């Protein structure tokens, strides 16, 4: 374990982590530059609107970033800073990386964070995280062009269809994410409701409805709406959790 963390937090790993992060940062900057040029050329976003987008993106990234931070803390203790940084900051989601690291360790008969976690077990963890995360890169690499073409064809023949799919899809995704967070079940049996989670969901949703209505004529409220709803949801969820305990 000691040896693993020494290696995992060594200079070479920091260098390798910086390489991957560099790729992500360069990609973001390339897209940012190209999109700003496109926007300016055709006046798509005004200077004022651009500022609003920057601010809104930054504000709304903070909440999730803090949450990711919490999962990352426990991962750092197991696989070190650089690997956490490159796996969680890039490609993976914190939870997926955890499972992958764990499965890798188990495959060599070791356990995360225990003495049995040798350098070989660490290598197995890193391999499983790498190959597991690679899947998304491969499918995105091969599928995005076809998806774009399919959407293009549809948008010529039927632009309304694109809007319909683009708005109905996220509603379905976030509906089920919320439902799964609040209700634990195995197909219509063993149903149990997590009332504290449900309280958090309902409060933040209601808060969002109110803020959205109030924000029709106040731009700053629209920028802060998700952040404020998040705080309200956290507070009620925690209060409900305490009341139930």
């Amino acid at each position, binding site marked *: 374990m000691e040896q693993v963390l020494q290696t995992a937090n060594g200079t070479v*790993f920091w260098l*390798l982590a910086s390489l991957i992060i560099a*790729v*992500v940062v360069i*990609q*973001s900057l390339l*897209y940012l530059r*190209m999109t700003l040029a496109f926007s300016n050329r055709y006046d*798509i*976003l005004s200077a004022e609107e651009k500022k609003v987008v920057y601010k*809104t*993106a*930054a504000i709304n*990234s*903070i*909440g999730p*970033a803090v949450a990711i931070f919490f999962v*990352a*803390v426990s991962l*750092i*203790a197991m696989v070190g800073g650089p690997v956490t*940084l490159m796996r969680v900051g890039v*490609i*993976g*989601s914190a939870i997926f990386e955890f499972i*992958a690291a764990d499965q890798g360790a188990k*495959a060599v008969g070791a356990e995360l964070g225990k003495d049995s976690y040798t*350098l070989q077990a660490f*290598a*197995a963890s890193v*391999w*499983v995280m790498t*190959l*597991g995360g690679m*899947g998304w*890169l491969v*499918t*995105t*690499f091969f*599928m*995005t062009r076809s*998806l774009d073409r399919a959407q293009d064809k549809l948008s010529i023949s039927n632009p309304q269809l694109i809007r*319909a*799919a683009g*708005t*109905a*899809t996220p*509603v379905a*995704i*976030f509906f089920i994410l*919320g439902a799964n967070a609040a209700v634990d079940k195995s*197909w219509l049996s063993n149903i149990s409701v997590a009332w504290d989670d449900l309280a*958090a969901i309902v409060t933040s*949703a209601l808060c969002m*409805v109110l803020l*959205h209505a109030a924000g029709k004529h106040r731009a700053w409220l*629209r920028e802060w*709406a998700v952040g404020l709803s*998040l705080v309200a949801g956290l507070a009620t969820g925690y209060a409900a*959790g305490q009341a139930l305990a």
Partner: protein
Amino acid sequence: MHNQTQDDFYKTQFSPRAHLIGRMTLLIAMVVCTFPALYLSFVLGAFPGIGPIVTGFLAILAFVGVMWVVEPISYFPVLGVAGTYMSFLSGNIGNMRMPVVISCQSAVNAEAGSRKAEVAAVIGIAISVLVNLAFLIALVLIGGSLINVLPGPAAEAIKSYTLPALYGAVLVLFANSATRRNAMTGILAGLAIFLSPIPELFGSAAAGILAIVLSVATNRGICAANGPKQAA
């Protein structure tokens, strides 16, 4: 002034460049992200053998294999081309990129599917990638000590309730940006998958695909019925 229309420019310049940047950076990322595993195995000599790697890989393949294919499809209508390449390289899509995209689009009143919405999405995702990295780098440098500074209840609340609260708020935002029919289609698709025996792990991807299929089906009927009138 410009001899190209916006749509023309988008199709002949913007879109091909977006694919080029995306594919090049993903390719480089695929190579670079194997370096730590290769270094551990062949420089430090800790290669665990093919067997354990395959065993571990198969264990996760069971639950991520489907997501690899389904996720890019179900998020594409919202993320767009550049957004898809960025989001799947930097991860954290449902818990960070999607909320950021819809917040930015609604902050500038961009209509779903418009160029304005796409521009706002790309800028929003790029900023969120940079902010998230800044947070993580700070975390790794400062270490866990920062978390001890937070009062217990606050830390507890953030750990347990960020995701549910985020889902509630973001669901409302997306529902508001949709027409009533499309919002209902989305909710029905989500409900159908939720009540089906499909495991929770595949739920969101399955709901996304079902929503795409249902919305195409319901709206195609409407558009076909309205078609002749519009033409006349």
